[in-house]
C-alpha cells in the first residue's frame, strides 16, 4: 500500500497567548490525503482548521506529532529535498489581495513560482494565466494586484499555485472572499483542475455546501479535534457526531420550487 500523499500523524499545537492563556489549536489530529483525493476539513472559526492547514504546508511546526509527505517526515528533510517537497504542496488563501505581493505584477508572481521547477519563461506564464480563465494572457501579464478585480486576483493565486505543478493544493477558504455570483466560476475552475490534473486537495472551509460539492472525504473539526471523518456522502447525509449534525442543521436551506431548475439556466 503506497503511503498517502499527505499524512498528519498525532499532530498537536498549542498557542501560548498573553496572560498565560493558551489556545489548543490542534490536539492529536490524524488526517490523511491520498493522491488525487479531495478532503474537506470542515469547521467553524476557532476550530483550528487554518492552523492545521499551515502545519500541513510546513509553515508551522507542530508541538508534537509529524507531517509526512509521501511517507517522509517533512521537517526532517535536508534543505534541497525540503524545497522540492514544499513545491509539491501549494496554497490558495482566502484573501487574494493579501496573498499577492502588491509591488509585483502577475508576470513577476508567476515567474517566481515557475522558477521552482526551473520553467521561468514568459510563455509558460501566459499559458498559466489562460488556463485559469484570464484571457488573453498577455494582457494580464503586467497588471499589479490592485489593478485586478477580486475574482481575477483569486484566479491569479490559483495560477500561481499551479505553476510548480504540485500534487496537493491546500485551499483555505478559497471561496469566502468572492462574491456569490463568481463563486461558481471559481468552483468550476477548481473542479477542472481536479479532474484534468488529478491534483489532490485539502479544502479547508466552514461552508458545508462547498464541501458537499467537491469533497471525496470530509473531516469535521471542533476545538482542535477531529470529531468525525469519512466519505463525503456518508458524513453529510448520515452524520454520526452530534456536532456534525448541529453544523448541518444550521445551514439555511433555500425553499425551492420545480420552476427554479426548469427555468432559464444561465450559462457558466
Amino acid at each position: 500500500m503506497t503511503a498517502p500523499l499527505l499524512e498528519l500523524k498525532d499532530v498537536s499545537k498549542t498557542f501560548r497567548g498573553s496572560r498565560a492563556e493558551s489556545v489548543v489549536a490542534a490536539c492529536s489530529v490524524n488526517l490523511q490525503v491520498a493522491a488525487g483525493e479531495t478532503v474537506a476539513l470542515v469547521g467553524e472559526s476557532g476550530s483550528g482548521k487554518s492552523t492545521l492547514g499551515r502545519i500541513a504546508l510546513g509553515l508551522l511546526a507542530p508541538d508534537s506529532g509529524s507531517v509526512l509527505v509521501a511517507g517522509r517526515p517533512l521537517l526532517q528533510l535536508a534543505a534541497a529535498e525540503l524545497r522540492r517537497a514544499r513545491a509539491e504542496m501549494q496554497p490558495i488563501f482566502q484573501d487574494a489581495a493579501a496573498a499577492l505581493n502588491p509591488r509585483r505584477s502577475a508576470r513577476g508572481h508567476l515567474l517566481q513560482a515557475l522558477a521552482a521547477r526551473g520553467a521561468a519563461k514568459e510563455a509558460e506564464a501566459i499559458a498559466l494565466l489562460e488556463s485559469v480563465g484570464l484571457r488573453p494572457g498577455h494582457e494580464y501579464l503586467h497588471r499589479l494586484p490592485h489593478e485586478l478585480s477580486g475574482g481575477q486576483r483569486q484566479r491569479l493565486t490559483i495560477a500561481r499555485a499551479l505553476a510548480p505543478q504540485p500534487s496537493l493544493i491546500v485551499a483555505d477558504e478559497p471561496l469566502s472572499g468572492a462574491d456569490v455570483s463568481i463563486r461558481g466560476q471559481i468552483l468550476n475552475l477548481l473542479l477542472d483542475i481536479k479532474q484534468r490534473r488529478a491534483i489532490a486537495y485539502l479544502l479547508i472551509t466552514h461552508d458545508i455546501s462547498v464541501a458537499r460539492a467537491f469533497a471525496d472525504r470530509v473531516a469535521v473539526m471542533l476545538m482542535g479535534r477531529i470529531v468525525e471523518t469519512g466519505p463525503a456522502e456518508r458524513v453529510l447525509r448520515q452524520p454520526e457526531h452530534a456536532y456534525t449534525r448541529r453544523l448541518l442543521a444550521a445551514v439555511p436551506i433555500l425553499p425551492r420550487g420545480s420552476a427554479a431548475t426548469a427555468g432559464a439556466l444561465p450559462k457558466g
Partner: protein
Amino acid sequence: MNGPPLLDIVDVSLSYRTRRRVVHALRAVNLSVGEGEAVGLVGESGSGKSTVARAVLGLTPAHIARIESGSIRVLGRDVTHLSEDGWVGVRGQPIAIVFQDPLSYLNPVMRVGRQIAESVERHAPGLAVDSRVRELLEQVKLPATCAVSYPHELSGGMRQRVLLAIAIACRPKLLIADEPTTALDVTTQAEILALLKELRTQLNMAMLLISHDLGLVASACDRIYVMYGGRTIEWGRTASIFEAPAHPYTIGLMHAAQADRDRDGRFVTIAGEPPNLTGLQAGCPFAARCSRVMPRCTELMPEPVGLQLEHTVRCWLYGASQPVAATACNGARS
C-alpha cells in the same frame, strides 16, 4: 397595516461624487417596509444594498453622497434632505440599525454595559438605567455578568447580541440589519436569526434584513427585494420568488447559493464580474452577464412587470403585458 408604511423609498437615485469620478450607487430604487414586516434585501458587491441601509439613516458620507432624485419617507415624514439635527429624531427610534462587524461598532475601551446604558439614557432619559440594561441583556439572552466585560472579551455572537441590545433599547419600530451574521459562524448565525425572530414578535418590530446570503433571507423574511447594479430588479413575497424566480440574476444566484450542477457536472455560474457603477449606463445593469440578453436590454431599463400578486420583476423577458404602477406601498397591502 393601515396608514403610511414605516419606511418608503420612492424612486431614489443616489450617487457618490468625488473629484475623480461619479459612482451611481442607487438608481430609481423603490422599497417599502410596513409595520411588523420582515423584509429582505439581497445583493452582492456593487448592488447598492449597504447604501440603502445608510441612506435611510443619513449615514452616507455627507460631502460625497447625493440623493439626486426620489424621496425617502419614514412614517410619512420626508427625510431625504434632513439636517444632522433632524436625523436625531429618526436614528434609534423609530429606526435602529446593526451592522456586520460588531467589533468595529463597539467602543473598545468601554464596558458593554455602559454602552447599552448610553443608548438607554439617550432615548429614555429618566428611566432606571441599570434595571433597563439588565432587562435588555435578558432579552438578547446574554448573562447579566456580561455587562462588565469589554467587547474584545466577548465572542462574535455575543458582541452582535450587545449591538442588538443597544438597538432595541430605543424600542425601534424598524430594525435594519446590514449583514448581521456574515462575520459569524453558521451555528451562531442560526442563534442570532432565532433571536431576531423572537425580538420581532416581542416588540412588534419590523425588520429590513440585508444580506448576500439568499438562504438567510429566505428563512427570515416574508418579502424580498433583489438588487443588482444599484437597481431593484425583482421583488415580492418570499414564497413566490423562490417558487418561480423570474429574473436571470435571481435564478443564477439561487443556483450559485446551492452549488447546483448542470448536466455535465459543472457548477452553474453567472458569467462575468460584478458591475462597475461609474458612468450612467442605459439599460439593464445585468445585461453584460445575462445569458438571455436581447438587444433591447442594453438600450432601456425594463419597467416593473407584475407576474402575480406580490411578485414583480424588471426584465424584458417578461413583456410589459401587465405593467405595475409604482405604488407607494408595494406589498404592504393586506
